[in-house]
């Protein structure tokens, strides 16, 4: 009788441990997206963070940070919502709501292009630990464009 109780508790423990460790493993795999990335055009740098279980990216650096018209830091002037056109581009979240789907892919998110004020459906695929394939598309994935982003190492200031 005691052996049966012990084995039931052991089975329960193993099942729970497996369940918890699978969450931890999934989180570790998903968190590889966190970091600072540079799109292929080199015009910006984007920092990806995790908020809750979703991933967000914000613009942290611009090659040309000053608006030549206003001589002030660039804002989201192409946003179709006039109320958001004065929001500074630095710090702007252009990647939103990405969820890790396994197999090195994050989906269900969107990407915003400040150059034209458009938001696209987006999937992210990590081809190696330092390279992302970011595919923005309209409706179906075939109607889209893929950009390659490279991971950056931020040099610590002394």
């Amino acid at each position, binding site marked *: *009788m005691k052996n*049966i*109780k012990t*084995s*039931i508790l052991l089975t*329960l423990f193993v099942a*729970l441990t497996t*369940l*918890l460790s699978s*969450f931890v493993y999934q989180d570790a795999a998903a968190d590889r997206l966190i970091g*600072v990335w*540079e799109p*292929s*055009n*080199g*015009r910006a*740098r984007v920092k990806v963070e995790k*908020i*809750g*279980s*979703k991933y*967000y990216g*914000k613009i*942290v*650096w611009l*090659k*040309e940070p000053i608006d*030549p*018209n206003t001589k002030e830091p660039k804002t989201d002037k*192409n946003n179709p919502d006039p109320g958001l056109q004065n929001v500074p581009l*630095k*710090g702007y*979240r252009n990647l*939103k*709501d990405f969820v890790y789907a396994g197999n090195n892919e994050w989906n269900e998110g969107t990407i915003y*292009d400040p*150059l*034209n*004020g*458009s938001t*696209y459906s987006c999937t992210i695929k990590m081809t*190696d*630990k*330092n*390279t992302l394939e970011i595919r923005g*598309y*309209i409706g179906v994935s*075939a*109607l*889209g*464009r*893929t*950009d*390659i982003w*490279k991971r*950056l*190492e*931020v*040099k610590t*200031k002394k």
Partner: protein
Amino acid sequence: MNFNPSLLNKSQIKTGLFIAFFAVNVHLNAQVDTANKSQNPPTEEEDFSQYDEVGFAETGAKRYCSPKIEGLSPQKLIGIGYDFQAAYKMNLDTFNNNANTGSAHEYNVKNSTGIRFNCNIPVISKTNLVWQMGANYWETGYNIQEQSIPVGYVANPVATELSKNGLRTMGLNTTIFKPFNETRFLLFQGSADLSGDYDLKLMPAKYLKYSAALVYGVRPSERKQWGVGLARTYRVGELNYIPIVMFNYTDAQNKWGSEILFPARAHVRRTINSRNMIFAGYELEGQSYRMYRNTAYRAEDLEIRRGEIRLRLVYECSLKDFIWLSVQGGYRINYRYDVDRLKNGNEIYRAFGLLSDEPYVMTNSLTNPLYFNISINLVSP
């Protein structure tokens, strides 16, 4: 050994259920928190200067220039449009084989109209290579006014053929952009077109016409790219090999710019905002159209060399998100509308008269009408 739950006492069951409930609840709570935060994720103050000095994590990673510059009009993925040329006169030469009888020569064209479909889909979009494939279908129908034929004359066979069947072009094209580094690139465009009085059931692939262009370019800044190259083209109606110059530019205020691939097209761009643009300029349009539907002309190996210059104003705007409207109006100037006979099945390469002065079978002239074009387009991210 069989498992019997009744053998567990109450406190053991409670303990087990509590652990299981706790584990599942932690996971569910995390999802709820995320859902709440995702609507409006917090942004904290951050020292952005720490991102000024960075390096690639991957050794040997390179930056490459993009195919686009800032402020350029959006690339059209799929477009369907309608082209309308107002009334004009068509003065057609006597057809060689009918020289003895003579043929009516002046025709009033009430209008020329047709639909135009284009698509251009990215196949590979890598940092170091962009490859796109496209297809196009353009048609031109001729609404020619009926007229009485003078005694001793016959209806001009070209006018009859145009009125009955019209002209159309159907083709495939490809674009390859290969950057070498942050400023230098190579651009290749190629197309294979079937142009003639065909219909969709009658498309003789052996009469495909091949065009290509190769440009070596420089992109010195985010707002300028230029290049030089060579093109094999039918844009002036017959085959030519010509040098080309590319110059795309946007000023610092993002108000004015140019989009030029000379001599094919050249436009000055005025950007009202990122969703409204006006262009002024021209485009050379043309093709070599096989006269195929009528077996008599087919046997003669005849092709119409059609080339025209479209001086125009173009307005493009976003109707909703990625759906763009393009409206253009202007003046269609006839450059060539002559009929040529192939020599042993081969095109005569005249090189603007430098290599051959072989006469055309018919030398025709068209007056120049106003024209109008409207299209709806799905634009690229």
